[in-house]
């Protein structure tokens, strides 16, 4: 990302537990910073307009559309992307449930769905299938894997309320 020296800014983010710094132009979104600069391409771009949810990441624990955040504006934040979910040899329960319920086809919306679902569960407001549907409606899936997505989230949600917290 070439930058004209007079307009570029230094930013620092803690991404998946690692502090990352970069020099960015004011017009660069957090999404493009992640994908182009940090090569964290698990976060997807589906619209760049906050309309599809493919770019969903967790910022300071909340789900956000990273395409709507200018990288310069939230420097210092803690960001979790799909690459920071699950461990190197194990899948996060939601990742596992997505595979088990075949809650994906092409997989392009999937990282955003999973990050969004983690956000949804920790918000704790959705209890029923209808509420899950509503709460997940910011994440479009053109492959139409919605029923599987709701099944996966419902299953993990039930396990969480049993154990009171996510593993």
């Amino acid at each position, binding site marked *: 990302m070439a930058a004209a020296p007079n307009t570029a800014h230094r930013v620092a983010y803690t991404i998946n537990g690692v502090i990352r710094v970069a020099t960015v132009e004011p017009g660069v979104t957090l999404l493009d910073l992640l994908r182009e600069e940090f090569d964290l391409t698990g*976060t997807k771009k589906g619209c760049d307009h906050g309309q599809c949810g493919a770019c969903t990441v967790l910022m300071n624990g909340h789900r956000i559309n990273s395409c709507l955040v200018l990288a310069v504006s939230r420097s210092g934040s803690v960001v979790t992307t799909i690459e920071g*979910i699950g461990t190197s040899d194990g*899948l996060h329960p939601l990742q596992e449930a*997505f595979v*088990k319920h075949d809650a*994906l086809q092409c*997989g392009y919306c999937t990282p955003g769905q999973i990050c969004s679902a983690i956000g949804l569960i920790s918000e704790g407001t959705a209890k029923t299938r209808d509420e899950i549907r509503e709460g997940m409606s910011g994440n479009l899936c053109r492959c139409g894997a919605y029923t599987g997505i709701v099944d996966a989230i419902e299953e993990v949600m039930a396990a969480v309320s049993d154990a009171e917290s996510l593993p």
Partner: protein
Amino acid sequence: MDQEQTVTGKSIFRIDGPPKVRGEAKYAAEYKVPDLLHAYVVTASIAKGRILSIDLSAARQFPGVVEILSHKNRPWFWPVSFLYKDAAGPPGKPFMPLYDDRVHFSGQPVALVIAESYEAARDAAALVGVTYKAEPHATDLARSPAFIPRKHRIGVAPVPHPTGDADRAFASAPVKIEAAYTTSPENHHPMELFATTVEWGDNIVTVYDKTQSPKSVELFLKVAFRLIGRKVRVVSSYVGGGFGLGLRPQQSVFLAVMAAKSLKRSVRLVLPRDHMFALGYRANTVQTVSLAADEKGRLQAIRHKAIAATSQFEDAQDPILLFSASLYRCDNVKLNYELAKLDTVSPCDMRAPGAATGMFALESAMDELAYALGADPLALRLTNYTERDQSENRPFSSKALRECYAQGSERFGWDKRSHAPRSMREDKELIGWGMATGAWEAAMSPAPARAEVRLRSDGKFEVTSSITDIGTGTYTILSQIAADELETPIERIVVRLGDSALPFNPIQGGSWTAATSGAAVQSACRKLKAKITSQAKKAGVLDRRPGTELLSASALADLLKLRRGGELSATGTMFSPPFGKRFSSATHAAVFAEVRVDEELSVVRVTRIVCAVAAGRILNPTTARSQIIGATVMGIGKALHEDTAYDHNLGRCMAHSFGDYHIPSNADVYDIDVVFVDETDTQVSPLGVKGVGEIGVVAVAPAIANAIFHATGQRMRDLPITIDRLARARSRAS
């Protein structure tokens, strides 16, 4: 191997699931390439005319801009259009971006800005000033003259010939209906943006592309850009959905390679969502259907006329009328298929092209006829059931549609339906139940497919094929087929796909991948198994006790050691079946839908759908079910939301984002129940497979429209059935 141990036909989890849920699967725009430039397209703001001038002064000065290409300074092209033909192109002259000063459609690329960063390219593109000389345009199908296409599109079934005398039979029949239906243009909108990353090298050009056919993109690029001496490799290991839009080499790959070639640099082009409206669309149609029956409901005449949109430069054709002559028993059938030229990009096959629009009209008309007769809509279908394809006068290779009706209606509870419209309600909502029949071709690819399987030194079998997996489950089903053929656990199968350097496969479309590419894998595995068995016998390492694998990992390792590293491999080829089939082959579906319509607000909710499908052998019920569910969701969009609305004054598509082009969201989708009906078919393909990619979408829109009629008493003949259309129909009626 006995039935117990086989994995084909079982619900195996998608093997590409783990890399996808981890975010590790790489799509076209995600490959790290050194020294990468970024491109952004400037698009035409008029629908028709000429470019008079392009002012680049401001854009060129924008920091980071490297080059701006237009028709004036682009690299040389072959001036003959047939060299730009592709495997899925219709008759006509394919569109070539930046070819000359002519504007053929609004949204057409007119310049390409290439810069050091994505942001610089995007922002500089906004500074490019183009002046045009506009000419009168036509984008309104209803006002454009229709014609019968002179050249038939290869690969699309021709319109069936007329039988009997439909006009006379219609005139004299006691019960009849005639109605006009329209369908709006729709866009595919896979979630992944169309993107290409070109890694430019002196000897090899690697193109990471979003396509449904790496092989045809490779061939296209070699010819179109005269890269004949160079090695061109097109990689599409993961494709974020296609739905038909990736069947042809897209504008993105054309422009990215053009930029890379002229700068001798690596270039990435990601099209923004608004540009994806101008890549291709499902043709909008105007249709008329006339149906006549005797008092018992037996069809006496079917007339179906369709006029579909196409561009000025290509005659795109879809099998809209394909099933109008073969789905029901009727001696008098007359079909007319015409096109009308519009100043738009060419339509591009979209999931169940043709059938999804034609069957909306036919199956809505069948519902209208049922009400004209006072008959149950399902009973009317059964009255006219046919075991033979009358239009071709031959039997079906198999047809378990009757079982689809039976199992689907039972699962749905159709027998509890009250016949009269507006007879079911709960609180403020009117409830409606509707049904429709679906059909789609069960075809093998007309082009051959190849696959290779190799025994690796680690004892695993590697299956390779250039076919893509656009979310369809191809990785998974090919693993299953290989595991069974090689009599080995699926864990020992590795599948590599989506790379033009791998064995040739045709485009991934037509629902034929499982049958065609699957058969190539089957054949390769059989050959390799024979090879291994004979060599292992000679080497004395064969263990053929019942219940054991063909060869244990250690025996295979011994065998490879004896061969001193020489690898064992085999290639299989699936040739298209010979012409002049003795039977017709089709997949069938029966879809039952429940809608709830808010009486005051006209908001429609599709609360329940049962889809019973007969598609021959189902290789993996899990991934196949997802295909049907996904297609059903797309059908809901077609029925209620999706409309690439045009401003005909400007000749411009008014939708430019998901904010104004609505696709179903999670909250729009309730229960979808899929039933696979048993259907054994030994003739349709070597694996007995018919394909499930498209059948799911066909009957959804008519089933929903029929359910809306049942709920409200309003017959909605124009798709999509939006809230305002339904509200207007209601106020007209009252």
